[in-house]
């Protein structure tokens, strides 16, 4: 099997302030995160010959990767503005790794930034509604973006007995994690009762079952494994990647409780040559609480249908089988739209470098990141490892 396993490493990460950050543009969030990632890597911008980013929801640049390059004063020879909705984060890293491995570029910045919270006007909110739903077969029926995901959770509850309390536990645990992460948007502890008492949005989801709306940006610097050895930080290697695109419309999905994540993760594990049981820590796209429960199953951390009890027994926090979203995820750290999934990757890099301070999962060598979007239309998984895992 052709593979980029061990050929490419992440050598720098950067994050802007997140939450409510008024007055800053989507370009700024991209550029500032990139500036910080280059400083972290200890390299000059002149060494960057590739840039991958996602379109901004707020800013009007169709060629966002080109606009960000210009803002930064660089002229890369590889550029990609990539959008597979929420799956963009892991997919962007995989595309950058493939480009490096294939010789299209040597050092690629993968960044993403947006000002969803400060920049969201009423017109943009309507645009979000229109663009995210089929205008003939879905939009006339008044679906929220969350409603598509809610349909999957409702069915999961009926098929497997997953409870509202189990969904709520995901939010509670994620909030506990965010309390250890400086700069997190949410800073007050919550209980299961708080989640269940928060306003219903689209059943079974309450307000606290849903991801935040934020401003923020994140960036990663990727280069060849050969070059990575000369960098100041311990390289974090790309061991495997996989993607899956199963449908556009939720009504065309073969199953709404088993998703393309089962396929994308199987491909990523196969390339990495590891089993789910070997993963020490994971960043799982947590747009909704039920999403996490379904992903724990599809990613192979527990059996299908057992995600609820798995969460309830503390398996996804410190001391459990697989601590996830140690930065607080999109439920409690930040969710500026497409950048939301990138913070999980930054956090997993920090875990594998042993730099996660009081959030550190002791001895973490192997990490998984999974991003998804469009009501499970898109799924992308990457497996990362330290030098010891090569």
């Amino acid at each position, binding site marked *: 099997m052709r593979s980029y396993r061990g050929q490419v490493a992440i050598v720098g990460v950067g994050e802007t302030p997140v939450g409510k950050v008024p007055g800053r543009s989507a370009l700024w969030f991209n550029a500032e995160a990139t500036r910080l990632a280059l400083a972290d890597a200890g390299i000059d911008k002149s060494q960057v010959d590739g840039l991958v980013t996602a379109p901004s929801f707020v800013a009007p640049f169709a060629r966002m990767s080109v606009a960000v390059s210009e803002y930064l004063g660089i002229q890369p020879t590889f550029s990609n503005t990539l959008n597979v909705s929420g799956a963009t984060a892991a997919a962007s890293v995989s595309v950058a790794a493939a480009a490096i491995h294939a010789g299209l570029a040597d050092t690629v910045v993968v960044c993403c930034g947006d000002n969803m919270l400060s920049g969201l006007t009423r017109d943009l*909110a*309507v645009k979000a*509604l*229109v663009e995210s739903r*089929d*205008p*003939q*077969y*879905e*939009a*006339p*029926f*008044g*679906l*929220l973006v969350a*409603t598509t995901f*809610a*349909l*999957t959770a*409702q*069915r999961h509850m*009926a098929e497997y007995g997953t409870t509202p309390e189990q969904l709520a536990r995901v939010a509670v645990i994620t909030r506990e994690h965010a309390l250890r992460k400086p700069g997190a948007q949410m800073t007050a502890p919550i209980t299961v009762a708080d989640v269940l008492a928060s*306003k*219903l*949005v*689209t*059943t*079974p*989801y309450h307000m606290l079952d849903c991801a935040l709306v934020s401003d923020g940006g994140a960036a990663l610097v990727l280069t060849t494994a050969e070059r990575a050895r000369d960098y100041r930080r311990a390289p974090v290697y790309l061991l495997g990647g996989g993607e899956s695109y199963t449908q556009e*419309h*939720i*009504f*065309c999905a073969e199953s*709404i409780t088993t998703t393309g994540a089962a396929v994308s993760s199987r491909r990523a594990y196969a390339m990495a040559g590891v089993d789910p049981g070997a993963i020490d820590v994971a960043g799982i796209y947590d747009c909704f609480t039920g999403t996490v429960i379904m992903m724990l199953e599809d990613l192979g951390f527990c059996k299908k249908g057992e995600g609820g009890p798995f969460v309830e027994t503390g398996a996804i926090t410190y001391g459990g089988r697989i601590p996830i979203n140690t930065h607080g995820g999109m439920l409690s750290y930040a969710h500026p739209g497409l950048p939301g999934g990138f913070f999980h990757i930054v956090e997993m890099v920090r875990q594998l470098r042993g730099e996660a301070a009081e959030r550190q999962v002791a001895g973490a060598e192997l990490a998984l990141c999974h991003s998804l979007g469009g009501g499970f239309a898109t799924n992308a998984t990457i497996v990362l490892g330290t030098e010891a895992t090569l």
Partner: protein
Amino acid sequence: MTARPLPPIDDDTRAYWAGLARGELLLQHCRDCGHVQVYQRALCGRCLGARVEHRPASGRGRVYSFSTVHRAPSAEFKEDVPYTVVLVELVEGPRMISTLVDAPPETVRIGQAVEIVYDRVSPEITLPRFRRAGASMTS
């Protein structure tokens, strides 16, 4: 009351919306492989054959999943909340998105039998909604 988003009809879907306007839910059947599909396309989504034809559906199905919307996605839907979005599995096989009428949210369950209700919202557009099968018309 503000106008809700109306479907923009195109060549693929003209016959579908015309069917709904006269009280027929049309499904595309492939004459080559027998596949039945939602949504309307110029080709069969299974075999890519162009010999797809519309046939009236029974209008009956079951609730495959549902979600009751409490926070309107936009001002146009504010006066309707709470309303229940359903993923209906038609007896012909395909699934479609709709909303339930005459169904208090707390009574909705996965697996319930439903039947189509034709909701005329403009001269061109009749939306396919669903109600509990056997329920009497109350509006």
